[in-house]
């Protein structure tokens, strides 16, 4: 029975996160005021779906082919936002899915979006396509054949980012993408109408629907990131003058 070394500061970060989270979410419940930097990607998603409805073409959604991780959780909240819009405006959404774990969860989100829009019978499971390793070939095939008017890619993206973006660009579709995978950010930054860089995907959920839980976590994440920036400054200055006390503290 004992404390594992190297997890002391780690626990401190977690406790600080929970404390600020509780404070910020209860403050939001009381005052209701929140400020989140404007993320233009959110409006672009709606614009893309609007364009698709005008042109009578479907929109395409992909999570990328990376292993199941928290990026997909952020993608779920963006998907439920987009799926509700699609259900409202009767816009067909075709989803290309590479990971098996995502199929039941995506199915649940789309099913819920249609039932909340009062159109449970319009929910079409055939548009949720599990493709495994062939995700990229099937994706560009679908984008070209269906002439999709909007292309959304959120989650753990790999080389499919440049494929999806350039394939949909041939339909001059409206494109919004987001990932935390640094190696793919250049391709969506260059090719998309608007992008979410890493943490922005998570903050978008707070901007779309500011619930106490989401406001609490965005503030907690912000405050701890600010503290980390301050620590970087202090730590660098201390190391410059020869003391690595802060580094040793953080490795406790």
């Amino acid at each position, binding site marked *: 029975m004992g404390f594992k070394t190297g997890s002391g500061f780690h626990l401190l970060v977690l406790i600080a996160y929970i404390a600020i989270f509780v404070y910020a979410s209860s403050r939001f419940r009381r005052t209701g005021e929140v400020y989140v930097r404007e993320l233009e990607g959110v409006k672009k998603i709606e614009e893309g779906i609007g364009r698709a409805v005008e042109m009578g073409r479907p929109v395409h959604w992909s999570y990328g082919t990376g*292993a199941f991780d928290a990026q997909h959780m952020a993608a779920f909240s963006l998907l439920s936002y987009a799926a509700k819009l699609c259900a409202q405006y009767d816009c067909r959404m075709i989803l290309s899915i590479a990971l098996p774990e995502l199929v039941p969860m995506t199915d649940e989100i789309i099913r819920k979006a249609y039932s909340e829009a009062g159109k449970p019978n319009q929910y079409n499971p055939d548009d949720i396509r599990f493709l495994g390793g062939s995700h990229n070939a099937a994706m560009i095939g679908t984008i070209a054949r269906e002439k999709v008017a909007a292309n959304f890619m959120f989650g753990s993206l*790999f*080389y499919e980012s440049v494929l999806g973006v350039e394939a949909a660009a041939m339909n001059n579709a409206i494109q919004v993408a987001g990932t935390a995978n640094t*190696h*793919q950010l250049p391709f969506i930054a260059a090719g998309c109408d608007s992008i979410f860089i890493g943490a922005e995907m998570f903050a978008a959920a707070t901007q779309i629907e500011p619930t106490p839980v989401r406001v609490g976590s965005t503030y907690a994440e912000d405050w701890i990131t600010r503290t980390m920036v301050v620590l970087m400054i202090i730590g660098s200055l201390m190391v410059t003058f020869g003391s690595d006390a802060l580094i040793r503290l953080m490795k406790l």
Partner: protein
Amino acid sequence: MWEKLNQIDVRILYVIMVILVVFPLLKPIGLPLPISTQTKNSYQAIEENIKEGDLVFLGVDFSPLQEAELWPQLVAVGGHLANKGARIVMLHVVPGGFRYEGRFADVLKSEYGLEYGVDFLCLPFSAGREAAFEAIVHDIKGLYKVDLYGESLTGYPLWNEISSAKDFKMFVEIADAPDWWLRPMSQVPGLLLWNGTVASGASTMAPFYQSGQMCGFIVGMAGGAEYEALTGKTGLATGAMDSQSLGHALIILFVVVGNLGYYMTKRGNASVN
């Protein structure tokens, strides 16, 4: 006139690209190739740290997608480890890896004369990626019962000498941006971490090499060609470097042409209205 420059059909660009990249494959030009300090340091990391009989993990975690860049790396680095007399345990968590693990096992037997089960071992696929490595860190004997060929592992002397991941000197992981390998394996005290990745995965792993969490880090086809030059055995990677030079020249040209067309038509429209 500038209008055309702004709307070139990309398929024309594709044809030019194919011609210039394929041409040197048939008639190599032999353009010069500088060796980066990063590859030199990674070579030294193995040269100095690995002695006869050291246990080394060799992660063969790439699929056909990355074969062009990572197979030459595996052959060059794996060969270097074999020459140093390391005892190699190969494994993979990426489904496509079993092909290359089997193929490199044949190379170790034929070219380096290593004996399977004594000098090196091949472990089978295990799903879950980060979870698989967590299991290797905590309880490698619990995770693996049979080897790549389905034979029980207890029959091999090398396997019986291993009790846990802590017995290993280094983990060489040949994979595309394997942060899912680094997070769990960084828990094993004293285990040197070494990664060969594809060029596109370099930015994910660069912070971990820069912070010293990894002692070696080579990148892409160029990294493979440079490592081949350092070990003195030229292979596939060296042959394709001419295509690289011409391909890069074309991409830069297209960026310039794209911007030229864009600016001229914008200036043209500006002066019109």
